[in-house]
């Protein structure tokens, strides 16, 4: 009875995790009704990635650089990295609730490509970093929960053989049994589901921004001409 209840919880958790995994994209219909914008998430991802890649390749070609020529000498690779990822100060920065400060350069071909697709580079960077790390934020909250800490202590005692130090890698079968017997599996599943709801509410604004900017980028990607070189005019600030 207990085991089947735990199993159901795991199923619920798996479903929640799947939702969260696709959470980057499962936040809206995605540029509905725009010609050339596919409806499926995978196809949309492919469209965005393909468009970004074309913009990056053209940008690098303008500087006489190419992603194709490998291997590269260290100096050549350094030149390519500066052109691709940017150089100088890291203008883009977001500190996550987990404590990590994620940074990136605002110049470089990758940043320029994203600026053309998503429009507002700073807003997109913030939304992408936060939404992309919702799962990490959930995990950090679960780890900080006293019930989880207590269960983890029980699990550690369970996998540690008598008179021996705690193993670096417990036998998988023992680890599984201890996950059940310590209550860690059940507590983790319950906390993850609850924290997921909390985190999605906390990051509602970023989820909305993520969806809006992604929809914009999908439209731009679908309309991207064969030549992606910037037209004359204030396309980039």
């Amino acid at each position, binding site marked *: 009875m207990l085991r089947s209840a735990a199993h159901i919880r795991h199923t619920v958790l798996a479903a929640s995790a799947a939702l969260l995994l696709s959470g*980057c994209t499962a936040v809206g219909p995605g540029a509905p009704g725009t010609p050339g914008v596919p409806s499926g998430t995978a196809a949309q*991802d*492919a469209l965005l*990635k*393909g468009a*970004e*890649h074309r913009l*990056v390749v053209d940008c690098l070609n303008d500087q006489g650089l190419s*992603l194709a020529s*490998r291997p*590269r000498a*260290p100096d050549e*690779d*350094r030149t*390519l*990295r*500066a052109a*691709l*990822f*940017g*150089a*100088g*100060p*890291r203008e883009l920065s977001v500190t*996550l609730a*987990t*404590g*990590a*400060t*994620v*940074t*990136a*350069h605002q110049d*470089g071909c*990758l*940043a320029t490509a994203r600026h053309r697709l998503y429009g507002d580079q700073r807003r997109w960077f913030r939304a*992408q*970093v936060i*939404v*992309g*790390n919702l*799962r*990490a934020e959930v*995990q*950090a909250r*679960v*780890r900080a929960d006293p019930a989880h800490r207590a269960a983890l202590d029980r699990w550690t005692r369970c996998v540690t053989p008598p008179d021996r130090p705690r193993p670096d*890698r417990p036998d998988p079968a023992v680890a599984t049994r201890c996950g059940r017997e310590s209550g860690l599996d059940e507590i983790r599943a319950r906390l993850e589901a609850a924290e997921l709801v909390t985190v999605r509410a906390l990051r509602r604004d970023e989820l909305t921004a993520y969806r809006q900017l992604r929809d914009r980028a999908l439209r731009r990607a679908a309309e991207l001409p064969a030549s992606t070189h910037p037209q004359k005019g204030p396309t980039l600030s």
Partner: protein
Amino acid sequence: MKRLLVTTAAALFAATAGLALATSAGAAECPSGEFCVWQDSNFGGQRANWSGDDGWWESWISDTDSSWANHGISGPGIKDHVKVYESAWQGGGMTICLAPGQEVGYNGAANDRGDSHIWSTGC
């Protein structure tokens, strides 16, 4: 498949001595196409770098990681995002997901916690 290169700080310095000032303010010293992890914050100390997945980092870098950089190259269908986990074989929860070009110089929470990573098409 797995490629792990260990670069000592001394070797790194020797290779980049002429550019030390220029690179310190630029992108982290991490080859294109690779995910790099440093023992010290702000991309210092010994560095591990991988072009593929690693389900269980070698002992000198596992749980001693302090800064990270994803210099993966994007392309259609290419796994260019990196997910870092706090246990071997992607267990114990993801601590960070980085898109190409993203770097983390320090993380109070995930510092010295990484044990494995995988490349992924997204976060």
